[in-house]
């Protein structure tokens, strides 16, 4: 059953062991998400501020533009009117009429006025008023249907202020009335009809004033034109020089000077600071209650056409005192509306970003939690393995170590961190470790055995591994140190070796015990010979004797005594126990020695031992007695095998070598090894011999393996078996 794996981790890695705390992940996600959101909010706030400022300045620029446009529109309009007026006060029809007040001339003039009214749509009335104040020609706009007013309907306007004002002017001057409401029969016409009266006196060639041309400009048209400029930057307001509203926020505010009974809601009353500012400055910006009010004083009569000076170019009088003030109010609500739109946009983006931030926070929280859990697992493992683990940087300073490391050296936590290897190991140990350290820092993994002083338990056998830590680009960062206390293994190996040696010794003794009879026989030969030679000598000495013969006999006695002692020595060597001594061993010598040891036995059992020894056989490193025991065991087994078989009684002992190994083969012509036995033949207590312990091959294999070699066997194609052991040849 496959356990549910951790997310985003390969199944075989240590992540399997890591349990991520979901509650912690959620908590961390929320915290991180909030933190990220707060951080993200900062640029948004700044952006929003900047955008709001920008909005404001955009709106203000718009406001300024609108103000300028309004001023321009006013001047343009007034210019057009003045230009019409100049024309009307000089054109031929008027001249003809003045020169000859005939019915047709007056009709011509009236038609002219009608044409103008029809074309221009801006004049409520176009009149010619005589110097007596009576209307002589009049065309009414008549709500879009201009008409010439009949003669009987013409009125006497002599009482009107503009008539008087104009009559006081000299030719070349123009009177312009303030913008006010048209009066009808002395009262304000309803609906109110704003109007400006433009009047130019008309004189004859002598400069005598004959009358005046009067244009009633439709004030509403100006209001409409300015109204078109109302927009998001604010609404256009128009104030006259007295601070009365000509275009106001509400109809009630407007034209109050025309209605003396109404509350005088002039600017001076409504907002004294603004009024004060307006009085002192021609243009400016006033801020109040979050609203921005831009104002500009407009001199409508100081148009462009007024500029070029020329004879007969009529100019309005007091043009530099005739002014209005255009004001555009950028209200707080307009600003807020713009900001609201901005905020709505920003919130959308911010919301998306916050969502993203939470996703990132979630991933981050998961990664953090998993890392933390992984670190805990790793720490737990690293701290509890019975291995010293550390990380050393290129300066040979400890950057990490586990608890085992501290315990080994008897130091407190963090006492190793930052120290150099030299400081920790001491001069002596460091000098010994130095070549390996250099190897590790050269990027090579090294492993070696050493003795290190444990703080409480004295010298310990350890295996030390340095594992280099190299970046993919080849840069060396440091290396991992792993120190494994192998003292128990070493001790057990020593014990095992001791046991093996003792067992081998016991086995040798047993072998010699089995061979005791043979050895006794063998030793009896020289002894018997000695006894007979000496007896012969003694007998001969009693009578005449031949000196030469006696010498031969004594010589023979000497030889035979040596022979006997050689046998004794050989046996003693074979069964000696003494401390094993490692050294170069000539396997040919061992083969000969073994052959000599079993020679008598072999001969008496009629087994031929054939030696095929390679010349110049390289020596091997080993223990002479133990290796002799191996060869002895193999030869004895082979002898037993040939005696059990029906073939030739021959055992061949062969040595050979190749580039690495030295081989010793023992072949027999016996029945071979039962294939069913296989490798079990090397187990203890496996024997096919009566009275055999079954220890010979087991011990032989232990001995060979203790020498780092191998012992194996194969059945010969022609019958019998060959046992071969190989050992590494000694380095020259």
């Amino acid at each position, binding site marked *: 059953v496959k356990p549910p794996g951790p997310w985003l981790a390969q199944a075989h890695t240590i992540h399997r062991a890591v349990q991520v705390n979901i509650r912690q992940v959620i908590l961390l996600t929320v915290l991180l998400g909030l933190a990220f959101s707060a951080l993200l909010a900062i640029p948004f706030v700044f952006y929003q501020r900047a955008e709001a400022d920008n909005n404001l300045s955009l709106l203000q620029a718009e406001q300024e533009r609108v103000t300028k446009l309004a001023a321009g529109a006013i001047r343009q309009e007034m210019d057009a009117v003045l230009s019409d007026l100049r024309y009307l006060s000089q054109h031929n029809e008027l001249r003809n009429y003045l020169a000859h007040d005939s019915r047709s001339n007056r009709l011509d003039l009236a038609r002219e006025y009608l044409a103008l009214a029809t074309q221009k749509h801006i004049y409520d009335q176009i009149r010619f008023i005589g110097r007596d104040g009576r209307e002589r020609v009049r065309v009414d706009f008549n709500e879009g249907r201009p008409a010439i007013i009949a003669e009987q309907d013409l009125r006497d306007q002599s009482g009107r202020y503009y008539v008087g004002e104009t009559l006081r002017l000299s030719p070349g001057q123009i009177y312009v009335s303030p913008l006010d409401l048209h009066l009808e029969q002395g009262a304000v016409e309803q609906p109110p009809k704003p109007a400006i009266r433009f009047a130019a006196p008309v004189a004859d060639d002598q400069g005598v004033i004959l009358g005046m041309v009067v244009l009633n400009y439709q004030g509403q048209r100006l209001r409409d034109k300015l109204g078109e400029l109302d927009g998001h930057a604010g609404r256009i307001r128009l104030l006259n020089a007295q601070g009365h509203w000509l275009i106001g926020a509400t109809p009630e505010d407007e034209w109050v000077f025309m209605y003396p009974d109404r509350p005088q809601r002039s600017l001076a009353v409504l907002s004294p600071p603004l009024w004060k500012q307006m009085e002192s400055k021609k243009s400016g910006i006033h801020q109040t209650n979050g609203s921005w009010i831009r104002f500009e004083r407009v001199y409508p009569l100081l148009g462009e056409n007024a500029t070029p000076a020329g004879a007969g170019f009529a100019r309005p009088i007091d043009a530099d005192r005739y002014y209005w003030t255009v004001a555009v109010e950028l209200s707080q609500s307009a600003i807020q509306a713009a900001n609201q739109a901005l905020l709505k946009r920003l919130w959308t983006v911010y919301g998306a970003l916050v969502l993203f931030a939470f996703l990132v926070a979630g991933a981050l929280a998961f990664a953090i939690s998993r890392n933390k859990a992984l670190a805990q697992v790793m720490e737990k493992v690293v701290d509890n393995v019975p291995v010293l683990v550390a990380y050393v940087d290129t300066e040979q300073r400890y950057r990490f170590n586990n608890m085992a490391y501290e315990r080994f050296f008897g130091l407190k936590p963090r006492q190793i961190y930052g120290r150099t290897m030299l400081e920790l190991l001491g001069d002596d140990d460091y000098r010994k470790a130095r070549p390996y350290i250099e190897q590790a820092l050269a990027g090579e993994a090294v492993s070696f055995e050493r003795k290190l002083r444990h703080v409480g338990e004295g010298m310990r056998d350890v295996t030390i591994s340095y594992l280099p830590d190299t970046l993919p680009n080849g840069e060396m960062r440091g290396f991992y140190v792993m120190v494994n206390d192998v003292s128990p293994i070493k001790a057990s190996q020593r014990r095992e070796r001791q046991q093996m040696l003792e067992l081998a010794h016991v086995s040798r003794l047993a072998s010699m015990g089995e061979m005791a009879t043979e050895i006794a026989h063998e030793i009896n*030969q020289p002894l018997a010979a000695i006894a007979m*030679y000496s007896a012969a000598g003694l007998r001969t000495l009693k009578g005449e004797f031949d000196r030469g013969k006696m010498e031969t006999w004594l010589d023979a006695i000497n030889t035979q005594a040596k022979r006997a002692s050689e046998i004794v020595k050989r046996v003693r060597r074979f069964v000696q126990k003494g401390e094993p001594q490692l050294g170069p061993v000539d396997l040919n010598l061992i083969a000969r020695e073994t052959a000599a040891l079993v020679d008598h036995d072999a001969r008496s059992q009629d087994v031929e031992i054939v030696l095929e020894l390679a010349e110049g056989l390289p020596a091997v490193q080993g223990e002479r007695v133990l290796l002799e025991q191996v060869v002895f065991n193999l030869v004895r087994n082979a002898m037993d095998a040939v005696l059990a078989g029906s073939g030739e009684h021959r055992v061949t002992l062969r040595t050979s070598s190749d580039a690495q190994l030295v081989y010793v083969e023992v072949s027999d012509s016996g029945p071979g090894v039962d294939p069913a036995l296989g490798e079990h033949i090397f187990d203890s207590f496996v024997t096919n011999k009566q009275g055999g312990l079954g220890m010979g091959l087991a011990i032989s294999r232990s001995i060979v393996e203790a020498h780092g070699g191998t012992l194996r066997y194969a059945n010969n194609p022609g019958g019998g078996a060959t046992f071969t052991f190989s050992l590494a040849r000694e380095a020259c």
Partner: protein
Amino acid sequence: MEPDLPTVYIVDDDEAVREALGALLSSVCLRYQSFDSAESFLAVVHPHMRGCLLLDVRMPGMSGLELQRNLQEQGVALQIVIITGHGDVPMAVRALKAGATDFIEKPFNEQDLLDRIQTCMKNDHQLWSTRQALEDAAARFGALTPRERAVMELIATGNHTKKIAAQLDIQDRTVDVHRFNIMRKVGVRTLAELLHLWSVAHQPVQN
């Protein structure tokens, strides 16, 4: 047929032992001859050999016991002393049963060995003397005529002259003449001597 001179034949694969034995035997003036294996001894063996065979029971190739059997088959009548190693008593017993005279265990006292060899030589001498007498007697009886031989056989069974004459249907006097001739040919003077010699000549040959 003349027998060889009594000799001690040594068969041992161990040269040192062989030569030491030789030295010892030469010190007591015994004739000896050494062989390093049963096979090389068998190559020279013949029925006229007399003396003693010192045989090492354990040898590569043909063993001592096989050699012993082989000699019997060839009718070689040598005294045999088996030399055994320590603990080889069962093998020695087998050798004795097969007709060996004696055995001696290594390591041996050389006087013991010499005693045994002397005994063997004595035995051998007796054997050869007996054999000589037997052959001699048989040869004497071999010269009798068939009629004389028939008379002799009847004498040997203890018949008197008359009974013999009656049985052979001849004159008593003729029987006496035959007896006289027999005694002259065989070379004895009394009847008792004649009967002894007959019994010697007709005893079964023993090895």
